[in-house]
């Protein structure tokens, strides 16, 4: 009874938060509401017996996404670009009313269709729980989610790492820089923050190591570990240290592609002829641990570098750096 009460409160809160954050006028307020929604989502994952997702949400949803959006929103305000596009629909008077009613109407129709689609889901569970459970013995790990990620569906995970790589390449290209120099904007003036960042970094690395190790038998794993380290690196950068910005282009590139390359190497060298990333008997446990370690490193560096790319360019008032002299010759 109480448990259902918690579920109900969480669901109503998430929906109300979403409506407010989508419809509100003040961008910063919407972003804070989005961060609050991330916290409520973490509670939803807890209620739906998905502790792995709750861990990822704690590191990414509440931490990294929030700080990315805050930076973007404040940067936009800083450049005075918000006022011009505050309203959902431009114009005034009856035209505006009609347009708003139209957009809400379309959304409402869509919502009804979605509700019917969800209610029409088959009632007989027909998932892969049994198949996964039957193959756990051979997977090399004792935690089902890790087994799916790095053994049963390792191919998907490999391509996901590829997506991360594409995203960072895109950000670096847009940023017109091939290292993370954009992160260097911060002057190290806030001593409390530097203190905290220096305390948090070793603790974050410790936590990441624990999550990495825990992932083989209880909820946790490489992605959560990487995200925690990334968040600590971002905190360090915000405190004025150079963080990943200290990396030159070549080591940065090496760390970014490390995991993708490791998957490629394993699929060529260590797999059986039955398919890519089909591990040989008895090697699965060790290979998974190795691949996970590369995921931790690459995810951490990639997420931290992504943050650098989305931040403000070296001081809004400062003239743009001459790309030709600063850009390293090759990636």
């Amino acid at each position: 009874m109480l448990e259902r009460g918690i579920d109900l409160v969480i669901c109503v809160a998430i929906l109300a938060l979403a409506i407010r954050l989508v419809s509100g006028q003040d961008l910063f307020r919407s972003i804070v509401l989005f961060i609050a929604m991330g916290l409520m989502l973490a509670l939803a994952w807890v209620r739906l017996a998905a502790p792995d997702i709750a861990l990822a949400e704690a590191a990414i949803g509440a931490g990294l996404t929030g700080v990315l959006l805050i930076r973007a929103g404040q940067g936009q305000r800083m450049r005075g670009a918000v006022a011009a596009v505050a309203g959902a629909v431009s114009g005034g008077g009856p035209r505006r009313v009609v347009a708003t009613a139209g957009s809400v109407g379309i959304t409402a129709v869509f919502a009804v269709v979605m509700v019917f689609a969800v209610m029409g889901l088959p009632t007989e569970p027909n998932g892969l729980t049994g198949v996964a459970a039957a193959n756990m013995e051979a997977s090399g790990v004792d935690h089902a989610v890790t087994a799916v990620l790095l053994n049963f569906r390792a191919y998907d995970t490999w391509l996901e790492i590829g997506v991360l790589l594409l995203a960072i390449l895109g950000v670096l290209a847009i940023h017109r820089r091939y290292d993370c120099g954009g992160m260097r904007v911060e002057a190290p003036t806030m001593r409390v923050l530097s203190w905290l960042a220096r305390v948090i970094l070793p603790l974050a690395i410790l936590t990441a190591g624990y999550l990495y190790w825990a992932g083989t038998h209880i909820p946790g794993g490489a992605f959560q570990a990487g995200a925690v380290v990334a968040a600590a690196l971002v905190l360090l950068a915000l405190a004025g240290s150079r963080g990943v910005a200290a990396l030159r282009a070549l080591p940065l590139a090496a760390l970014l592609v490390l995991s993708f390359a490791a998957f490629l190497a394993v699929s060529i060298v260590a797999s059986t002829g039955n398919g890519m990333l089909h591990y040989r008997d008895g090697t699965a446990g060790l290979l998974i641990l190795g691949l996970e370690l590369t995921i931790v490193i690459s995810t951490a560096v990639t997420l931290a570098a992504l943050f650098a790319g989305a931040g403000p360019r070296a001081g809004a008032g400062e003239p743009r750096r001459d790309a030709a002299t600063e850009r390293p010759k090759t990636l």
Partner: protein
Amino acid sequence: MTLLEIGAIVLVTAGAVFFLAGTVGVLRFPDAPTRLHAVTKADNLGLGLLALGLALLADSPSTVVKLLLIWVIALAGSATACQLIANAYQREEQQVTPDA
């Protein structure tokens, strides 16, 4: 019900009262610096009492250590965040009334 469980209930309840006090403070206090008092002091004390209460129920020493570690880290984070927000607020005020 064992003595430990009763202790846990008392501590967790006390913690919840402090959380309530913090929320009331955030909603009712007149400006940002006073609201910061409510968030940082009341809520962190509440979290400490809650962690202590749950530590009584813990099944292993490592869980107790983890609970206390969480509290200490939360303290450090929220103390820093409090100072940062206060700093930002102060500058904002100065900007609004530059001659004051």
